[in-house]
């Protein structure tokens, strides 16, 4: 197996607060890897540094073996890095299909064309429609995003990212805010993703984590506490202590 995403000694400080503390992390090709940890552990900040939205205080990031630490978000996207947002980050004034089409167009490198009308690029719209259909959203394609049910908005959040055809996918709490009886829809989507995509998922729902992940990393106060298979993690007493907030003595 090869490493598709790696950090070396990644650090981030907000003033006196250390949110990433020398994180050494590796994501394998085709991985199903979960990053868990208490609120405020620095999980979202870690993702923001990986994508280039936030600059690390120090340390390096490698994507497919290449040092991308100083590259822009755009350059990292072009190298196959995609992410979803913990709190929906969508185009609320646009239709569902347009939300996805924007991402398709950028991936195809024609998002800045000036001369033909956007709707004349039928292939862009068709691809967006096909993607929506595969997520069970075909009937909602023309709906204004702001009028869509919250659970479906979470799926659009994923659809936009899939439209970028990433090799490495960072999912920041994809089921956040979705009632637990509906999280299976999100899980179905995740299970159906192509095996070759390396996935890092941040999630608080332990059922979902243990069903999906083949490998788990625990982040506490910006530092990796533990990494291992789900069995190893479940058996480790420290996990209960720090993550589940139970004192064990």
């Amino acid at each position, binding site marked *: 197996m090869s490493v598709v995403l790696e950090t070396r000694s990644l650090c981030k400080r907000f003033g006196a607060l250390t949110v990433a503390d020398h994180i050494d992390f590796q994501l394998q090709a085709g991985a199903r890897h979960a990053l868990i940890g208490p609120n405020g552990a620095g999980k979202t900040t870690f993702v923001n540094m990986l994508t280039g939205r936030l600059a690390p205080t120090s340390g390096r990031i490698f994507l497919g073996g290449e040092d991308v630490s100083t590259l822009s978000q755009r350059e990292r996207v072009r190298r196959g890095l995609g992410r979803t947002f913990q709190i929906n980050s969508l185009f609320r004034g646009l239709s569902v299909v347009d939300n996805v089409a924007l991402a398709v*167009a950028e991936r195809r490198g024609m*998002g800045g064309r*000036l001369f033909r009308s956007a*709707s004349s690029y039928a292939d862009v719209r068709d691809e967006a429609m096909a993607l929506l259909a595969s997520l069970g959203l075909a009937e909602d394609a023309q709906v204004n995003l702001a009028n869509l049910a919250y659970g479906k908005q979470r799926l659009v959040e994923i659809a936009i990212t899939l439209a970028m055809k990433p090799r490495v996918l960072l999912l920041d709490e994809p089921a956040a805010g979705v009632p637990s009886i509906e999280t299976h829809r999100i899980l179905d989507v995740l299970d159906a993703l192509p095996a070759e995509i390396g996935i890092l998922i941040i999630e608080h729902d332990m059922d979902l984590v243990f069903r999906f992940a083949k490998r788990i990393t625990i982040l506490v106060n910006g530092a990796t506490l533990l990494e291992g298979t789900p069995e190893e993690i479940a058996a480790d007493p420290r996990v209960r202590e720090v993550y589940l907030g139970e004192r064990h003595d």
Partner: protein
Amino acid sequence: MRHNGSYSASPRIGLIEWLPWLLGVAAFFYLPEYLSLGARILVYILYALSVDLVVGYAGIVTLGHSAFFGLGAYAAGILSAKVGVTDPMLQMLVAIASCALLGAATGALILRTRGLTLLMLTLAIAAILLEVANKATSITGGADGLSGITVAPIFGLFRFDLFGKTAYWMCLVVLFICWWITRRIIYSPFGASLVGIRENHVRMASIGSPVSMRLLTAYTLSAMLAGVAGALLTQTNQFVGLNVLSFESAGELLVMLILGGVGRIYGAFVGPIVYMIAQDQLAKQFPEYWSLGIGVLLVAIVLFARGGLLGIVDLVVAHAKRGKSAFAGKEAP
């Protein structure tokens, strides 16, 4: 009726979109005594259209577009009065080129900022230009304005006449061309991406869109349009005053755009038409109530009708349609 560039909206020009042009031509024949007001309105529609592209579509807040309107106006004026270039097309080209340069240069500096910072920077740039024009009296005429501007016949054929007939046609044709270009931009993938940036620039960046470059392109294109409007004003008035660069005129333009409706293309038409005709009819009769009235109207629009006058039309149409479908719904079991 919003005009948003999108991958699902047809770019076909609707029947009602020909209405402004029909009115524009009809006004020439039926309101010959108002041609100079008409030409001024056409200029301001173009100016408002340029502002709508950045404010309404790209979501760039600016109060400084008078910099480009003024630069276009002075470029055409100085070229004629000081350099002796009287060909209107040449003047127009130089105005466009200067505005493209200024737009690209200042845009590259300021478009990395957002919100209030950006607003202040756009204001500052307009203020600097105003001060330069005020001080460089030998070139610009300073506070007295720049006169002695002559404009040769268009293509050597159409002479600018005393009644403003040629000027009116020129404004109408140039506005038509600029409208057509702007409309194409808005319906293009680029235009759709601008709306994406306006809706959520964080997400656009995360799907790999070169957000800064897109904004800079939009800003520069818009600067060029404003420059065309400025040059047209000079050519129709054969005079340029400092007021083209003033904060008041930039503010007044924004009032017109908000009145018509922002981010709709035709808000830039409706706003200046309503505002300037009302001003022409009311400002002289009721000078003290005029500003008050505009102020109250603006507050009412911002509070109750964010889409401007066209937004109100949309609401009424939507209401009427809903009434119909509710009726149709009763027939179904």
